[in-house]
């Protein structure tokens, strides 16, 4: 494998990690106002991701940084092209990050309720907008011969990509509910399970529609060479199993299968794109690929060495963190950390 391919895979791995981890994070944020009836319940829900959400968000920052370092043209084209969508997402993420920290600083129900809705918006919007972005990556957008996209926000709001956004929201909500069923007790866990079952139905319906549309709208599942068909099938199997495990009360397995759904769906997208990263809908020759958009061989070599050393270290301490906080969080005012 040449280094360009290595970095394509590494970027795909970073986005997979990001969607898997922030997926349940966003899901928990979306469900927070609905599953938590009392303050200590909401606090317990937040505390299931409290120690880890920040580390999860770094997956997105690192994915962005890695894109910048390894495929600077992709970084430039994508971020300037999706300008308004990104700004909206950043505003939402800013609100969300601050909300986790600030909600507890005043013991006032109205104050806390406001921040809880900020967490909801801050989780819902990024989920929707990432889905929208991925939808547009799959169907391509109007990139010109100089790698610039001039169309603004409106053409990005096509129905196919909006459906992609809704798939993300539904999948992440399900993923978050599965996570909460695993990490909470009593009332909340029961409500999370019921919600997980509903979200599973919605996610399955939307995903099926989206995959069928993808088959006709894009070449992600059909192009010759590497394509997304096999990971798409694996994602479908995992999704079905996740629903079945949810019904039979196997929370751990339901979460694992939901996670695999997210992982395989992301793999499907990147496999379908390869070796392109951004598809031009004007002319396939204008697409940004792992060759024409890449950093120099020297930079890729330096970055490969850095990544080979530090990615494993990051994985070790993040996995250790999840082990430290593996217990369920009780909605008990005596033990909750605010």
């Amino acid at each position, binding site marked *: 494998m040449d280094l360009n391919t290595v970095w394509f895979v590494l970027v795909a791995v970073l986005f997979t990690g990001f969607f898997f981890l922030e997926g349940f994070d966003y899901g928990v944020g979306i469900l927070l106002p609905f599953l938590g009836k009392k303050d200590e319940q909401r606090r317990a829900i937040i505390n299931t991701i409290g120690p880890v959400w920040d580390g999860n968000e770094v997956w997105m920052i690192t994915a962005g940084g890695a894109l910048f370092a390894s495929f600077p043209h992709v970084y430039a084209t994508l971020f300037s092209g999706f300008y308004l969508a990104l700004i909206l997402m950043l505003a939402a993420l800013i609100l969300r990050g601050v909300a986790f920290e600030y909600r507890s600083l005043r*013991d006032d129900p109205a104050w806390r309720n406001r921040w809880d809705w900020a967490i909801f918006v801050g989780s819902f919007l990024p989920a929707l907008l990432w889905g929208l972005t991925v939808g547009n990556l799959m169907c391509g957008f109007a990139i010109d011969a100089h790698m610039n996209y001039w169309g603004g926000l409106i053409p990005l709001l096509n129905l196919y990509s909006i459906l992609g956004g809704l798939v993300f929201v539904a999948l992440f909500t399900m993923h978050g509910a599965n996570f909460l069923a695993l990490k909470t007790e009593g009332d909340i866990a029961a409500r999370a399970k019921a919600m997980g079952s509903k979200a599973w139905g919605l996610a399955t319906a939307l995903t099926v529609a989206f995959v069928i549309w993808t088959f006709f709208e894009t070449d992600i599942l059909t192009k010759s060479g590497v394509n997304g068909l096999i990971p798409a099938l694996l994602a479908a199997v995992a999704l079905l199993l996740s629903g079945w495990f949810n019904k039979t009360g196997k929370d751990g397995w339901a979460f694992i299968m939901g996670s695999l759904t997210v992982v395989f769906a992301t793999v499907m997208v990147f496999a379908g794109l390869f070796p392109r990263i951004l598809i031009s809908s004007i002319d396939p020759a204008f697409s940004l690929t792992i060759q024409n958009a890449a950093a120099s061989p020297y*930079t890729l070599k330096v970055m490969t060495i850095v990544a080979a050393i530090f990615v494993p270290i990051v994985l070790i301490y993040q996995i250790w963190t999840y082990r430290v906080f593996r217990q369920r969080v009780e909605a008990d005012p005596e033990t909750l950390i605010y």
Partner: protein
Amino acid sequence: MDPLIFARWQFAVTTIFHFFFVPLTLGLSIFIAILETRYVCSGDEMYKKMAKFWGKIFLINFAIGVVTGIMQEFQFGMNWSEYSRFMGDIFGAPLAIEALLAFYMESTFIGLWIFGWEKLSKKVHLATIWLVAFSANISALWILIANSFMQHPQGYMLDPASGRALMSDFAALVFNPNVIFQFPHVLAAGVSMAGFVVMGFSAWHLLRRHEATFFRPAFRMAAIFGLIGSVLVGAIGHFQGQFLVVHQPLKMAAAEALWETEGPASLSLFAIPNEEQQTNAFDIAIPYMLSFLSYNNFTGEVEGIKGLVAKAEAEYGPGDYIPPVALNYWAFRVMVGSGSLMALIALLGVFLSRDHRLDERKVFLKAVTYSAILPYLAATAGWILAETGRWPWIVYGLLKVEQAVSPNVPAWNIVLSLGLMTLLYTVLTITALKLGLEYGAGAVEIGKTAVAADE
């Protein structure tokens, strides 16, 4: 409408807001780590209480620092896509490394620190806060390596086909001489800011006779912190200035509002620069002093703006090469003035906090409370000088700001995002200040883990 001016404003707003919150976390994380070390070594519960109390102030700042940092990273692709295309090969690497080396570590271990008091052994818990302090400062190092490439590019070669700058020497990128000055300067600034914020809150409580046993030792430690930080920041800054006289002479000439070449050059103390007529309407100056500061001798010739502009035009072609002189002149004075005042106050603080009579020094304590604003003024002014003084270059000598902006983002998009972000930042900053003050002043109970000052 020209998008350039709005993109520049957005860069300014993002950077200033971001750096309003970050330096405190650099120094305060070290401060808290020292407190917890004393707790673990001595077993004295008061140090644990102190670590938790200042930890909350840390977290209020950390939260905003993180989220404004995402904008700081992403704006290069959003507003400055041409910059990202032409410099991304070399500039993207330190940003990615920063995330990989530092952000992961900082955000993971801060989570462990907050939620791990009961779950981790004392020593492991102590290690988490030291790792937070270490990674916070490592992240500063990598972002400054990136900034130093913009200030003093090296380790690159220009690709003749595409005109892009390609990384040719990673070691030269990392060991940029600009970093050797800039990193310790920023680190010391963070330490001094932590010192002054802790001193400020402690003075406020001591004035009200709240828990003197809690706040008196904090004050003393913070005064030492503030003194070390502000003396170092000034000393390093001096050498950094001498480096810039050689490598970015126009920035320093603008910072001194020195229009004509002088040898020996005098140091201006108070001037009203007139940028249209390229002269100073009013000027009080100390003879020989600028030569001394620039070269360690009293006769060295310091080149003025007019001469330097002629040289720049000869080298790079005609164009506007004069940084905003009044802005740089005053930013420089605000920075140096605040820093000097801080060194003085911290010195007095160390001296006066030797014994319990500190509580009776009402005037001094009141002054210290207000002086917590000084490091913020200094840090903001410092970045204004560092970034606007580089005009017209986004990468010094290589790429002009006007060539770097995204061609495909219309002005109204930037205006919209600038408005949204400014509004959001303003609301959040006011909230952060209010919460910081409320909490630091002990007025709020935070759940049941609150360390109320009056308990």
